[in-house]
């Protein structure tokens, strides 16, 4: 029954996409590229600043992150230890055993954000913005911790418990209900709807096409170009697997992936550190380049400011702070203290950007000092792969598997986030429609060049940052109240500590 449905739909894809020649990739590319440019131009409307073009939307994000960091008194530093204690279970009531734990919420959210961006996006940042982009990426990661704190606290606070016992939460809910509680009901409803549309469309970029594209690129790199022109085939296979999980309900694939991804992340970091140590002689120079590129007007594409812009852009893309997707994942936690999920979520940009992205940046940076031409024409994942290959010849194969798994788990997570936006608007009954659309875009992602995909993904993702950060500004006082109340309750002993 299920397999019939699966086969029919899959065959439909195959027929629709079956090319007589491999030129299908180019055809699709020529259609999407101009659309990507147009969307990009609108969303990234820029103003000239000190000789560089500053997209207003990036300014919006940066200002927000700085504001929340200051408004919450550097909770990213002062709350870090508590975040670890929460994840460890020190404050978990044994009677709640069996409910979603803080660790599980964190692991799920991180699994969704750690994706190709950590491997390929960093390479893009360094290519476009020079080594200085790394510094701004790390800073963006740090500032983004506070943004995540706010949005994840709100996600739990304004979650909705459905009739069937499941939970729905996320920015559309805290916009609608949180702003209504402040007397801004119409604004809240409008923003909620806008965000919901934004996320189910945006999911098709960052959580879908970008991932499948980069997975294909890495597979192709490892196959030495044997897959050139076969993006459509790889795309179909990937789409098929995603289809099996999200529509076919074959949970075992997702279950296996969710368990392997953390292992791969650790493996990736371990090998990256090995390569960095192998390049140890070049570490000082690489770090020097990062700082000089960050501050002197000596880089590419607009100097230090260009590095800042691209650094921030790629950081947000990677750790999703300000996009609001993590608040959907965290909203599943049942707790009387919503702010605990805020604390836990501090760790996400830290792990994703400050740790993993920095490690990738150092691999690339040290390799660039050692052999400036190591990558040739390669960009994105292919560039990172070349950096690893220089020291560990077989690592690109491992990277290809890691990229595939990261991409896959991110796609599964984002299919859910996008679905939540869809069902917020259209109800639960039309779920399958969105899921099919999602799978189609997985296939499409492999048929387009990185450029237009990145443009579209970026544009859509930053578009939803706009209402999200606006809502966070409105609701920040609510979060501050929760945080202060919570800290008082801990100090007074009302909140029990169970662990060491």
């Amino acid at each position: 029954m299920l397999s019939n449905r699966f086969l029919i739909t899959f065959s439909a894809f195959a027929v629709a996409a079956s090319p007589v020649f491999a030129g299908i990739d180019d055809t699709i590319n020529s259609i999407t590229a101009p659309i990507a440019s147009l969307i990009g131009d609108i969303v990234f409307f820029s103003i000239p600043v000190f000789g560089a073009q500053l997209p207003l939307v990036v300014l919006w994000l940066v200002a927000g992150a700085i504001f929340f960091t200051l408004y919450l008194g550097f909770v990213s530093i002062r709350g870090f230890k508590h975040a670890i204690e929460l994840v460890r279970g020190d404050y978990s009531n044994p009677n709640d055993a069996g409910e979603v734990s803080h660790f599980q919420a964190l692991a799920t959210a991180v699994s969704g954000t750690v994706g190709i961006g950590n491997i390929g996006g960093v390479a893009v940042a360094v290519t476009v913005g020079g080594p200085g982009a790394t510094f701004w990426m790390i800073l963006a990661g740090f500032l983004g911790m506070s943004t995540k704190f706010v949005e994840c606290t709100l996600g739990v606070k304004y979650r909705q418990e459905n009739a069937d016992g499941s939970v729905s939460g996320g920015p559309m809910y805290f916009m609608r209900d949180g702003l209504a509680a402040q007397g801004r009901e119409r604004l809240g409803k409008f923003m909620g709807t806008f965000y919901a549309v934004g996320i189910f469309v945006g999911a098709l970029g960052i959580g879908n096409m970008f991932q499948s594209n980069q997975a294909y690129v890495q597979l192709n790199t490892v196959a030495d170009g044997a897959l050139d022109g076969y993006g459509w085939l790889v795309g179909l296979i990937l789409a098929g697997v995603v289809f099996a999980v999200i529509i076919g309900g074959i949970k075992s694939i997702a279950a296996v992936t969710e368990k392997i991804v953390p292992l791969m992340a650790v493996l990736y970091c371990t090998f990256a550190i090995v390569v960095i140590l192998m390049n140890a002689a070049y570490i000082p120079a690489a770090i020097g380049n990062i700082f000089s590129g960050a501050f002197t007007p000596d880089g590419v594409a607009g100097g230090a400011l260009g590095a800042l812009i691209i650094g921030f852009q790629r950081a947000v893309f990677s750790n999703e702070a300000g996009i609001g997707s993590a608040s959907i994942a965290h909203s599943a936690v049942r707790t009387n203290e919503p702010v605990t999920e805020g604390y836990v979520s501090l760790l996400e940009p830290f792990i994703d950007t400050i740790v993993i992205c920095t490690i990738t940046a150092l691999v690339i940076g040290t390799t660039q000092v050692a052999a400036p031409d190591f990558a040739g024409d390669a960009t994105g994942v292919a560039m990172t792969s070349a950096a690893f290959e220089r020291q560990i010849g077989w690592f690109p194969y491992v990277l290809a598997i890691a990229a595939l798994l990261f991409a896959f788990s991110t796609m599964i997570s984002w299919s859910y986030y996008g679905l939540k936006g869809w069902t917020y608007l259209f109800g639960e009954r039309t779920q399958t429609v969105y899921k099919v659309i999602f799978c189609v875009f997985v296939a499409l992602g492999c048929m387009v060049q990185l450029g237009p995909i990145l443009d579209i993904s970026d544009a859509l993702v930053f578009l939803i940052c706009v209402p999200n950060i606006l809502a966070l500004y409105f609701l920040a006082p609510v979060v501050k109240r929760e945080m202060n109340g919570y800290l008082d309750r801990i100090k007074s002993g009302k909140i029990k500590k169970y662990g060491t």
Partner: protein
Amino acid sequence: MENRYLVAVEGSEGSRRALTHAIERAKVSNAELLLVHVIDWSPYSFHTPEELSARHKRREEELARARDVVLAPSKKLVDDAGIKSSSEVRHGKGAETLAMMAKDHDVAQIILGRNGESGISSMLFGSTSSKLVQISSVPVLIVP
């Protein structure tokens, strides 16, 4: 220390034998029994967002099933033998949870069957009973 024995109930043949033995002991020493079923669960596991959102409901279902399918028949056996008893379901890791409950309820002894898990699993990961013997703060009786 209360005159109470904690019996680990798994629904397996081994745990059935353990329960029978516990009933005999309780008759002799006029003790009461605390029947405990542990649903295997760890806070350190990895899931999709969809699974997380459905978790609360699944937890309720797991608890209901444990009470009705696993514990109820055992409780009936104990009631029929005329022994005072209570029952609890908990999520967690077997050995750690049993040890914790033994301490919380101040029991005199834990009684459980030898191997609830399959042979290979207990060979690789250690069985609940062997782990419990290491960490329990009260005497542990393992019924073969």
